C-alpha cells in the first residue's frame, strides 16, 4: 500500500502554495501603498474594485490564518499544562511496545477514562495516550495504535497539519482550499494506517479502529469538529484496509467551479493591482 505522489512532487506543491500566499500578501501590501498614495477611490472604478478585492481577500486570509495559529498555540499551552498535571508513569507493556518501535523516549501517558492517542508538537512531536486506552484495547491493538502514531511522529504530521490548515485559512475564499487541507490530513492518516497495518496486521488495526470509533462522540470534541469529516475519513481508512490501496478522492464539481470563479476574479484583480504600482515610486511593472 503506497501513496501516489512522491516526495519531490509533494514538496513542489507546498512550495507553489507558499509562493501563492506570499505573492498575495505582497500584493496586499502594494494595495495598501496604492490607496495611501492615490487615495480612495482610485482613478477608475475598475481599479478601485480590483485593488479592494485583493486587499479584502488578503485581510480575510490573514485574519483566518491568525485565528488558526492562535487556536493551535492555545491548544499547545493547554495540552502542556494537562500533561504536567495529569502525567502518569508509562505502563511497562506500553513501554516495551514503544521501545520496539523506537519511540519510548517520546511517549507520555495522561490520566483519563477517555481512550485516545494523539501526536502533538509542531517542533518536537510527541505521542500522548490516555490511561483509558490501556484498558480499552489489547496489547496487540495498542501496538497498532503506537505504530500509527509513530508514523505521524516520523513524518512530523502535526507540522504538516498546521501548515495545511494555515493555507486553507488564508485561502478561505477558495472552497477548494479547505478540501485540499482535508485531503492532506486524510493522506497523513492513510499513510499512518499503512505503517500500522504493515507492523501489526490489518485485522488488529481494524479491531483498534472499531473499538475506539464506536465509543459515543464526546460533545465538546464533536463541537470542535463542525465539518463532520470523521466518519468520511474513517470510511476511506476502512476502504484502504480492505482494498490494500488508498481510495481515490475527488473534490465536488461545484467546489471546483466556485474556486475557479473566484480565481477568475482574483487573478485579473491581482494583475491590475500590480499594474497600478506604476503610479508609485519604484513600481513593480
Amino acid at each position: 500500500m503506497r501513496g501516489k505522489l512522491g516526495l519531490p512532487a509533494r514538496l513542489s506543491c507546498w512550495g507553489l502554495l507558499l509562493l501563492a500566499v506570499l505573492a498575495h500578501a505582497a500584493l496586499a501590501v502594494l494595495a495598501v501603498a496604492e490607496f495611501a498614495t492615490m487615495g480612495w477611490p482610485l482613478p477608475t472604478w475598475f481599479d478601485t474594485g480590483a485593488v479592494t478585492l485583493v486587499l479584502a481577500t488578503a485581510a480575510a486570509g490573514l485574519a483566518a490564518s491568525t485565528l488558526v495559529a492562535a487556536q493551535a498555540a492555545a491548544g499547545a499551552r493547554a495540552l502542556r499544562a494537562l500533561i504536567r498535571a495529569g502525567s502518569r508513569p508509562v505502563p511497562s507493556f506500553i513501554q516495551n511496545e514503544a521501545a520496539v518501535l523506537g519511540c519510548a523516549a517520546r511517549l507520555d501517558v495522561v490520566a483519563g477514562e477517555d481512550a485516545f492517542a494523539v501526536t502533538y508538537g509542531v517542533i518536537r512531536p510527541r505521542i500522548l495516550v490516555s490511561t483509558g486506552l490501556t484498558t480499552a484495547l489489547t496489547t496487540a491493538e495498542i501496538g497498532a495504535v503506537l505504530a500509527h502514531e509513530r508514523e505521524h511522529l516520523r513524518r512530523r504530521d502535526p507540522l504538516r497539519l498546521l501548515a495545511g490548515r494555515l493555507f486553507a485559512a488564508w485561502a478561505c475564499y477558495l472552497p477548494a482550499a479547505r478540501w485540499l487541507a482535508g485531503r492532506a490530513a486524510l493522506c497523513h492518516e492513510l499513510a499512518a494506517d499503512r505503517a500500522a497495518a504493515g507492523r501489526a496486521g490489518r485485522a488488529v488495526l481494524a479491531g483498534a479502529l472499531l473499538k475506539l470509533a464506536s465509543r459515543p462522540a464526546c460533545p465538546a470534541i464533536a463541537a470542535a469538529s463542525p465539518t463532520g469529516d470523521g466518519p468520511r475519513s474513517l470510511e476511506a481508512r476502512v476502504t484502504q484496509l480492505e482494498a490494500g490501496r488508498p481510495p481515490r478522492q475527488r473534490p465536488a464539481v461545484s467546489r471546483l467551479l466556485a474556486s475557479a470563479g473566484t480565481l477568475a476574479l482574483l487573478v485579473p484583480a491581482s494583475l491590475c493591482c500590480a499594474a497600478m504600482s506604476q503610479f508609485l515610486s519604484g513600481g513593480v511593472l
Partner: protein
Amino acid sequence: MAEQGGAGSTLGPLEAEVMAVLWHSGKPLPVREVAAEIAVRGVLAEFGDAALARFVERAELDPRLRERLRRLMEQQ
C-alpha cells in the same frame, strides 16, 4: 441516565459533558475525577484539528462501516 448531549437533549453543554463522562465510566465517580476527565476532553477540543493527529475520532458508526470493520477483524 440522560441522553449524551444529542440534538434532542434538554441538558446544557456542561451538564451533557458531565453525563457523558459518567455514562462512559459506568460507575460512580468523584467530582474531581469528572472534572479531570472534562479537562482532558476540553483540551483536545480546544486544539481542534489544527496541529494534532488523533488516532481516530469517536463517531456514531454507520452499521455498514461497523460490519466492514468486523469482517476485517475476522481476517486474522
